[in-house]
């Protein structure tokens, strides 16, 4: 069968040499959709597209998928060339900058025109996608942070319940840390660590987003404690250096007491950690029930030739029928109420642990943080994180680091 494939591609190659594929497929009613590193659902998408084409004869759909770090580069190059995909799956706060700069279409009118559709979704997640009173995305799938904890290590250290406050996080960590073992780890990209700050009442910016607000004595104290705990080995260094594999791998190896991560981490650590089952792994809200979301949503490029069609496709893909299918296969929540009900129900008996994890995603959705609609989020992140890292890893003392961060962020805010 490989031979046949090779032959076909050989022919395709000859053609492609002269005429790029996506130009050949040019037609008045063509939709292009760019998804974010989810090629594993190709089969599902194909079905959805087929149904859509059947409903809208003569429509062609071009499906592209790029992996996370590459998607922005790709989309922006396409923007410059004036050929951005009509529909784009965006994660985290990336959308705000593009919305603010007018790359994305304001979906508010479409949503107002279709209240029934809006009712399908969790309002808190919906409202996460409003910038200057305009909504730009429709939820595709969602994930927010929670606290995983290793019950075996808790027992060893004589701890019964998960931590209820920042102090307990530190105290418990110190209790569980010995030799190779550490007490706490967190994911740190996309503000995922921010609940640690928020539960201490620390704000990044003033409410009007005009000035930094984090450089307070309390913040200095918190960062200082985190740094000390890291130096002492109570908190795993990887919390501040690793990205995805390293922290999850560390926790999965069973030598870390608690992990603050978003729910997507569950299936990763489940696959890695042989020790993990419903009696050994706990999943609960972080103290103060604060969490940082990293949601995926569909936006429409302003340059889209026929936005109605694009919106129709989004409706199809996020509507009850397909959202339910998707949630079922991918074991994720979609902010589509019906789909999530079905998903939880399905998971409940065959994987109670997963059920517990996913359950946290629907609780306290009103206490989300680290998801500010900032047009220059990327620049602020880039100005803040390295400085915080300096402090947490003991390269600078908390005071100077935060002061430097404040200066850097003030500069960013002044510039825009």
């Amino acid at each position, binding site marked *: *069968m490989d031979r046949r494939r090779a032959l076909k591609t050989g022919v395709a190659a000859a053609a492609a040499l002269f005429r790029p594929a996506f130009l050949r497929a040019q037609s008045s009613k063509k939709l292009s959709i760019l998804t974010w590193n989810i090629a*594993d659902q190709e089969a599902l998408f194909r079905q959805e597209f087929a149904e859509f084409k059947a409903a809208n004869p003569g429509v062609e759909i071009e499906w592209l998928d790029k992996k996370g770090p590459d998607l922005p580069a790709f989309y922006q190059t396409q923007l410059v060339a004036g050929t951005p995909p009509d529909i784009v799956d965006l994660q985290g706060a990336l959308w705000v900058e593009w919305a603010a700069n007018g790359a994305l279409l304001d979906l508010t009118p479409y949503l107002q025109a279709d209240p029934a559709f809006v009712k399908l979704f969790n309002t808190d997640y919906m409202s996460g996608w409003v910038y200057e009173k305009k909504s730009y995305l429709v939820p595709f799938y969602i994930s927010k942070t929670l606290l995983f904890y290793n019950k075996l290590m808790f027992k060893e250290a004589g701890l019964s319940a998960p931590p209820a406050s920042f102090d307990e996080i530190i105290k418990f960590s110190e209790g569980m840390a010995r030799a190779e073992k550490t007490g706490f780890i967190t994911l740190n990209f996309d503000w995922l660590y921010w609940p640690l700050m928020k539960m201490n009442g620390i704000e990044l910016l003033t409410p009007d987003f005009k000035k930094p607000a984090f450089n307070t004595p309390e913040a200095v104290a918190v960062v200082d404690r985190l740094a000390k705990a890291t130096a002492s080995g109570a908190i795993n260094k990887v919390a501040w250096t690793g990205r995805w594999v390293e922290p999850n791998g560390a926790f999965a190896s069973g030598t870390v007491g608690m992990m603050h991560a978003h729910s997507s981490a569950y*299936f990763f650590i489940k696959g890695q950690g042989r020790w993990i089952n419903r009696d050994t792994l706990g999943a609960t809200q972080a103290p103060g029930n604060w969490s940082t979301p990293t949601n995926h949503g569909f936006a429409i490029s302003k340059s889209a030739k026929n936005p109605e069609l694009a919106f129709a496709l989004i409706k199809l893909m996020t509507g009850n029928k397909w959202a339910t299918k998707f949630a079922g*296969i991918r*074991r994720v929540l979609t902010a589509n109420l019906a789909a999530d009900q079905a998903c939880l129900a399905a998971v409940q008996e065959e994987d109670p642990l997963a059920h517990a994890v996913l359950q946290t995603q629907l609780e306290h959705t009103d206490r989300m943080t680290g998801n500010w609609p900032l047009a220059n989020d990327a620049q602020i992140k880039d100005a803040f994180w390295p400085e915080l890292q300096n402090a947490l890893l003991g390269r600078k003392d908390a005071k100077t680091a935060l002061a430097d961060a404040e200066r850097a962020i003030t500069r960013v805010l002044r510039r825009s």
Partner: protein
Amino acid sequence: MSASPRSAALRLLRNRFVLVPLVLLVLIAGWNVFVLTHNHGIVTGRVVDAVGRPVAGATVRLWVFNFTTFVEQASVTTAADGSFRFTDNPSHNIQISAEKPDAGRSERIAVRLYFAAQDRALPQPLRLEKGS
């Protein structure tokens, strides 16, 4: 220069830049032939109970690997001699489990194949255990 064109051509063919790829091509072709003749997706095996007697009418499930998790692909019931036969396994990385209401359930055994839909007969029967 003086050599006849034919022998010259031969010499050209005898250099390693021709031979190595040639050998590789032959190997690949051979392998593909083997694959094409052995990928009917047939998986066969037997189901026995705790003491090793064949179990008829047990449900055998075929789980197929899909990027991150195993999803159920098909299920068949065993014949009188406890044998079962899947004819539509599309994957290269599968798991098989059996269960019967009164006889209990077997553990899910993982089966790795050398290529998708490789025909395979399970060496060990699936053993049903009570109360697991």
